[in-house]
């Protein structure tokens, strides 16, 4: 449970940490677009290079990024296996009883799995290198033009920060409740699906109750500090674009170019 790095902040000083939050958000969006555009396996090479470079520059230990993928391993395996055996395609590559692997299925399996891995590791780099407060500021400023058409930019951003802020807290809480129920003999790790689902009740009920209690407390604390939404609020950290932001934009442009080129120039599955 504690291995969950998505949404955690890793506080060190690095070039990536110093990038403007707005740039980082835009970069991440561009990166996601690039991942989805990747048409063949060659296209993942520049993406991999980009992630590795960003990870290197961010000084976030590689172990930490890999650990962040661990909670997803079941999803990854599912994605891979389902696509592999139930994919369409003209050519049958392999057949064993009811199991068949077709060419399109194989390529989908590889694509979707790689895509998931790259999406998660890229986006967790964003949250690992940007403190939630700054991240929200960035989101809010990027969305603020939309305020004119009635989009609640500030409120959205605030909700997101709070959600991010409480992930580690809830994980810790879940850990504690799990231990306490294990001390009363609860068994979370064996039995069939139904037994396991039932075993979650002693964990989930206290967890929900405490989440609601925390939410109430937080609302009260915010109100007693005169929070009343975004109107007229000034910032503690003012965001400014710098030279490194420019380099970052150049690099992501190169990434997209590389992905597009590999799609058009090389014909591979």
């Amino acid at each position, binding site marked *: 449970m504690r291995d969950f790095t998505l949404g955690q902040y890793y506080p060190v000083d690095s070039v990536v940490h110093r990038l403007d939050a707005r740039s980082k958000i835009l970069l991440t969006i561009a990166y996601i677009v690039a991942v989805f555009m990747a048409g063949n396996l060659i296209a993942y090479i520049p993406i991999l290079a980009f992630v590795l470079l960003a990870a290197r520059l961010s000084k976030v230990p590689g*172990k930490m990024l890999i650990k962040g993928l661990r909670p997803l391993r079941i999803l990854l395996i599912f994605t891979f296996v389902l696509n592999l055996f139930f994919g369409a395609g003209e050519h049958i590559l392999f057949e064993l009883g009811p199991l068949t692997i077709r060419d399109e299925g194989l390529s989908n399996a590889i694509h979707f799995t790689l895509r998931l891995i790259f999406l998660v590791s890229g986006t967790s780099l964003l949250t690992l290198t940007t403190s939630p407060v700054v991240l929200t500021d960035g989101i809010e400023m990027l969305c603020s033009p939309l305020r004119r058409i009635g989009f609640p930019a500030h409120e959205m951003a605030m909700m997101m920060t709070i959600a991010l802020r409480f992930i580690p807290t809830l994980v810790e809480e879940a850990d504690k409740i799990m231990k*306490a*129920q294990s*001390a*009363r*003999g609860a068994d979370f790790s064996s039995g069939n699906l139904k037994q396991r689902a039932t075993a979650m009740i*002693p964990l989930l*009920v206290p967890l929900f*109750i*405490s989440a609601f209690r925390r939410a109430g407390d937080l609302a009260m604390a915010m109100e007693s500090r005169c929070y009343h939404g975004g109107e007229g609020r000034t910032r503690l950290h003012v965001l400014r674009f710098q030279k490194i932001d420019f380099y970052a934009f150049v690099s992501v442009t190169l990434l997209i170019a590389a992905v597009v080129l590999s799609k058009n120039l090389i014909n591979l599955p």
Partner: protein
Amino acid sequence: MAIELKNVTHVYQARVEMNIVALNNIDLTIEDGELLALIGHTGSGKSTLAQHLNGLLKPTSGKVLIDGEDINENRSKYRFEVGLVFQYPEYQLFEETVKKDIAFGPKNMGLTEDEINQRVKSAMELVGLNYEEIGEKSPFELSGGQMRRVALAGVLAMQPRYLVLDEPTAGLDPKGRYYLLNDIKRLHEQGTTIVIISHSMDDVAWLAERIAVMERGRIVKTGSPKDIFSQYSFLSDMGLDVPQASELSYKLIEKGVPIKNCFKLEELADELQNLLKNGGKTGA
């Protein structure tokens, strides 16, 4: 017949490359039938130690033995031998009724329906909750102090030989605290071995037969309450208080009032009463 910790070290890996040595080479024996208090500054490793006593945490190195057998070799056997009541246990309640919640532990032990009911009833009696009146209520309708007692009953219903309590009186009002301390004392008198973690030196003075002082993952001292509480400067070095009675008697002794050093309020009251009977302020 005892719980023995042998060279127990526990390292938490909070983040990659960030290791916290929460327990550092702990040697401790908890004798059958004793009431041991574990005191120490915040973060000294008390809760971590407590979770080793029933195998919830595994030592990074070293061993935890119960009756000479390694607890981590056969964890399911010892899970119900050592009852662990966590800090703020009322936040683990989840069932629709108090009875059902208390029955959770015994049910997991695989007992019969009759046996479970019997145990729920006697556990509620032990902590002073009325079976008829409160049993069918939702635990969430109760007061904080009552909820805590329900949680305690939930562990007691497993009838553990050893009971480990992590700051059981934290956040209770004086009355709730008083009742809970009495419950603990009564359990101890009925033969349960008890380890209590507390920040309240008054609670410790009132209950404990033996005290272990922890600092930065080590046990730096063990001794009787009389012994420990007379070391005023040692305790304040550890960032700990002394009981109110000790503090008052120190101050009186400093002023030249001829009394003994007491750590229990009753004892100090007797002492002062004697002094007053024998002619009041007799100087030093």
